[in-house]
């Protein structure tokens, strides 16, 4: 178990280094120059060189990468005019665009994204498992057909359409809810939930569809297994068979999927964040890519990688807890 965790952490470090290396390589190959963007209109060659130096992009890419890694592990000092400013480890550098520390930017936006992801997943799991169980037990009856139709619709409708319709209905027509703007949970829990309700629903629509399908298939598959027949042959009531035996097997694949979905929503729910004006990590990434803001791009990508690896490890541990046959090696 401990050996397993050590191996997983070691693997994660390797993955993250590989990821950052890849990003630097891609950035180096890209034809655009962040200094030109920063320097702005009417930029003289001398000024451009200064900007380049300030951003650190005049060094060879290998040197840049070495600096980056050193900053990450030990922190690093940046020239700021005559003085220097210290960026403590783990240092991801300063945004080319806003000159703020990348770690600060990420920490500001992570709670927003986490709130969004957690709420959406709770909603989606509840609705998805519920619908999946219902339709799995009533296979090929009208309820199953309705659920299946809704699931397909959920898959097909793009999130921005759902979002716009929700905004139109609840904020414009009925005026039951305010236009979403993020309020931290610690400031006012009620306002936090009210503001996030619509984004949660919009995001949950697609996830619900996926979970419902998986649960339906899982329930049907488990109910056909021999040990369910044994349970029936020993007089266990049907309800107990479903809740204690079938559901456990049916929900196993959901564990992995949910963990990875959580990590994915936290870093890449760009459309939802944009539509509802939520200052999340996804928005940060899109802005940074447009501005060739390398430190921010690297920062967000590493965060995404870290979350995915962590989510996978948690999923494996959960899997082990739910299914005694699983061995962690």
């Amino acid at each position, binding site marked *: 178990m401990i050996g397993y965790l050590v191996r997983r952490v070691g693997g994660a470090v390797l993955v993250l280094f590989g990821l950052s290396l890849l990003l630097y390589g891609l950035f180096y190959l890209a034809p655009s120059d962040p200094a030109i963007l920063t320097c702005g209109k009417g930029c003289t060659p001398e000024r451009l060189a200064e900007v380049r130096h300030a951003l650190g992009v005049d060094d060879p890419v290998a040197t840049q990468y070495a600096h980056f890694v050193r900053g990450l592990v030990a922190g690093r000092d940046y020239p700021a005019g005559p003085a220097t400013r210290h960026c403590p480890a783990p240092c991801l550098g300063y945004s080319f665009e806003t000159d703020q520390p990348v770690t600060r930017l990420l920490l500001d936006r992570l709670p927003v994204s986490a709130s969004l992801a957690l709420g959406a997943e709770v909603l989606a799991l509840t609705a998805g498992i519920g619908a999946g169980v219902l339709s799995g037990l009533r296979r090929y009856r009208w309820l199953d057909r309705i659920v299946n139709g809704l699931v397909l619709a959920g898959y097909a409708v793009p999130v921005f359409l759902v979002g716009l319709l929700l905004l139109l209905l609840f904020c414009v027509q009925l005026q039951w809810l305010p236009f979403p703007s993020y309020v931290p949970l610690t400031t006012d829990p009620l306002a936090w939930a009210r503001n996030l309700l619509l984004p949660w629903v919009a995001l949950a629509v697609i996830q619900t569809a996926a979970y419902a399908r998986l649960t339906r298939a899982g329930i049907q598959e488990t109910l056909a*297994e*021999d*040990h369910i*027949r*044994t*349970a*029936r*042959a*020993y*007089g*266990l*009531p049907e309800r107990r068979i479903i809740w204690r*035996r079938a559901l*456990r*097997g049916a929900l196993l694949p959901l564990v992995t999927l949910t963990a990875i979905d959580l990590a994915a929503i936290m870093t890449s729910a760009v459309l939802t964040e944009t539509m509802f004006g939520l200052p999340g990590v996804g928005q940060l990434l899109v802005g940074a890519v447009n501005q060739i803001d390398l430190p921010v791009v690297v920062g967000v990508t590493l965060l995404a990688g870290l979350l995915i690896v962590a989510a996978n490890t948690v999923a494996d541990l959960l899997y082990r807890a*739910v*299914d*005694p*046959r699983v061995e962690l*090696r």
Partner: protein
Amino acid sequence: MTTLTVENLRIRFGDTVAVDGLSFELPAGSALGIVGESGSGKSATALALLGLHTSATIEGRISFDDLDLTGLNDKQWRQIRGARIAMVFQEPLTALSPFHTIGDQIAEVYRLHSGASRQAARQRAVEVLRQVHIPDPAGRAASYPHQFSGGMRQRALIAMALACRPRLIVADEPTTALDVTVQAQILDLLDEVRETTGTSLLLISHDLGVVAGSCDRVVVMRRGLAVEQGETAAVLGAPTDAYTRELLQAAPHPTPPRKNDGKPLLRLAGVRKHFKQRRREPVKAVDDVTLDVRAGETLGIVGESGTGKTTLARLMTGLLTQSAGTITLDGVDIARRPGGSVQMVFQDPLSSLNPRRTIGESIADPLRLSGVRDPRSRVEDLLERVGLARREYDRYPHQLSGGMRQRVGIARALAPGPRLIVCDEPVSSLDVTTQAQVLALLEDLREELGLTMVFISHDLAVLRQIADRVAVLADGRIVEIGDTAQVYAAPQHPYTKELLAAVPVADPAEARRLRALRRSLDLSDTKS
């Protein structure tokens, strides 16, 4: 006094009649066997006794202790199931929930029917686990099914059946998935349970030998009908029905030995095959095997699951490369053998044939490989030779029966004109009458084509019929090898003795003698 009376039972699935007018009686405390091949309706009968059919129409009467089971509603059924009639299923691995411990599963059933406290239910679970000879029952109750061996899982299922002290235990092919020595242990256990608890036993099997040793009366079923029933000794000793006679004749029987002094064709010297494992000791599947297969002989190799039979077969055909030692065919390293000179017949003909290609195309493959341009007529000749019609060329594997598919497997092995054929459990998935036909076919082909054959099986009776010499495999090593007659008459190694005592035989008197022999060999120690 009778525990169970079945009168004129009819089970239909839509228009298909699975059981057609079956009647039998099971006296209290006795054992009844139902024997039949696949599709005879024996499992459908078992499920009907517990009301477990969901889509079948059931007619007739099933009386159980003065209770008419045919008219029960769901709730009444649930009070019978497990409490008064308990079932033991075929596949002990899948028949238990993988998510709950053995003890919890048994305790759950007991609590459900007795209303006992958790504590009392747990105690009862340990008690019945002890009754079926699980070592350290209190400790092992906390194990999950995957931590048990096949035999122990079947014991656990029997323990579960015993938990509520039922009046009747229905065992549907309880030993089919098990090794022969474990099978003997489980049958002995069922017998012991019946003696000590006074419960009645309905034992369903395709194997006459399994029923012969364990049942007082037997019903022979064919296509939903009981063709014959009566005292086991009478039915099996002097059958009146033609089908019963056919079944008995189809069971493998010893043949007079053939002397073969041919030169060695395939030679294995010090052959080992170790499979590396991550962070574990390598698995020594084949460990220092030295043997010769003589030209023209049939060498039988017998062993239980996990003894390295299949690995050895794959080494002999060059499908695997040995970790150490040499394998030569006619003096040439097996890796450089002439193409097509060694062929293999696999255990499961359904999964070893490509389901998306016609069987003719599958057989034609090795011919095309050896440069035959238009192999169709050659393939049709082969089909005819193995007892199939020429027009079967264009059919797909799923359209054929198990026996026909195995004939296809044999035709494919014959196609390139091999000198040696390695058969890996070629008849173990077939019904006994089909098995007899396929064995006869292999025998004919060997005579006619002068083939050399290696025949791998877990079934000692089959080997006794087909093999000239037998090698006994245990833990990747050959513990005994010799002429078939000699090995069977005077086994030297303890493991061979154990195997031979475990073979089910269709003669009830002999079966009882073997059970006594097993007890004296003390095989009921808990090694499964």
